[in-house]
């Protein structure tokens, strides 16, 4: 739920990185944090388990400058990917304005991507939001693994599995190397800001 502060001429927007466990959601945020260090005044917040997996969420606030005369503050969150953490995953989705779905390109994770997208659909319904209308961008992550000979799903297969009905922008990316991490972020910011532009007049 974006909040427009007319006094400070500021808009706060919530963007959530969603997707199956070990897909690279936290790695996306870590790359953004390292890359835009000078624009981020705070530490990245992570609530992790001992095994270094996201337990609740990661949080990274980032200023992206002015849009229509408003200072735009993007609040980036990740959710825990594992199936068992659905209760906390749903909490993080509360008030979401835009979603990046980080899918795992590894062939062995095909089923997990599809299940996670279904889970997103269900959890959004819980907040009376529809996956068909919310700003959403797909990121097919881990394409760098091809170099190591790990079997990956072709772009067309990922599109057919996840994006055949939704028809949203999709990026092949590598969060570890940073490839297409920033274009994914820019795309979701553009789409999310467009969805609330009527409020910024």
């Amino acid at each position, binding site marked *: 739920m974006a909040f427009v502060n007319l*006094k400070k001429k500021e808009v706060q927007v919530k963007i959530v990185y969603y997707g199956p466990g070990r897909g690279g959601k936290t790695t996306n945020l870590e790359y953004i944090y390292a890359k835009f260090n000078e624009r981020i005044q705070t530490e990245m917040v992570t609530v992790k388990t001992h095994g270094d997996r996201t337990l609740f969420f990661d949080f990274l606030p980032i200023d992206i400058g002015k849009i229509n005369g408003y200072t735009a503050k993007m609040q980036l969150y990740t959710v825990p990917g594992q199936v068992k953490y659905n209760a906390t995953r749903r909490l993080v989705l509360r008030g979401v304005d835009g979603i990046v779905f980080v899918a795992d390109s590894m062939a062995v994770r095909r089923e997990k991507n599809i299940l996670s997208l279904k889970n997103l659909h269900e959890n959004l319904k819980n907040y009376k939001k529809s996956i068909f209308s919310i700003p959403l961008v797909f990121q097919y992550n881990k394409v760098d693994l091809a170099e190591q000979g790990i079997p990956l799903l072709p772009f067309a297969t990922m599109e057919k599995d996840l994006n055949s009905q939704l028809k949203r922008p999709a990026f092949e990316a590598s969060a570890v190397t940073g490839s297409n991490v920033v274009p994914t972020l820019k795309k979701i910011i553009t789409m999310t800001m467009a969805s609330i532009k009527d409020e910024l007049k």
Partner: protein
Amino acid sequence: MSYTLGQKQLDSIDEILQTDLVDIGVHCVFLIDMSGNIIASLDDGENRHDIYSLAALAAGNFGAVSAMAKIIGEGEFSLLFHKGKKENIHFSKVLTEFLLITLFGNDLSLGFLRLKVAESVEKIKKILEPIHTP
């Protein structure tokens, strides 16, 4: 979905937080929504906490505690308060979509703080009610 608050409404909220809470000695007070956005924040001039992170964690924490309450058959816990050695945090829900978070030291009694928080919550409700979405 999004919502907007104007100068007049935000000024009124600031005034309530200043006179009811900052003036009685709380260190820092902020009003957020359940998504973790900060609507208003004030402090006594000495606090330099990272309130954006605090707001995100507070909204998550409040959501988690409410979910626990439901599992054990409580609608909601009436007192949400974390006690530290020097700094304490108190949470109070405002309507269904907002949270008032107060940081205060041991020089202020919890009872008095709760009384003042309850008073300001009633006043803030009147301002936020028109934009409130159940």
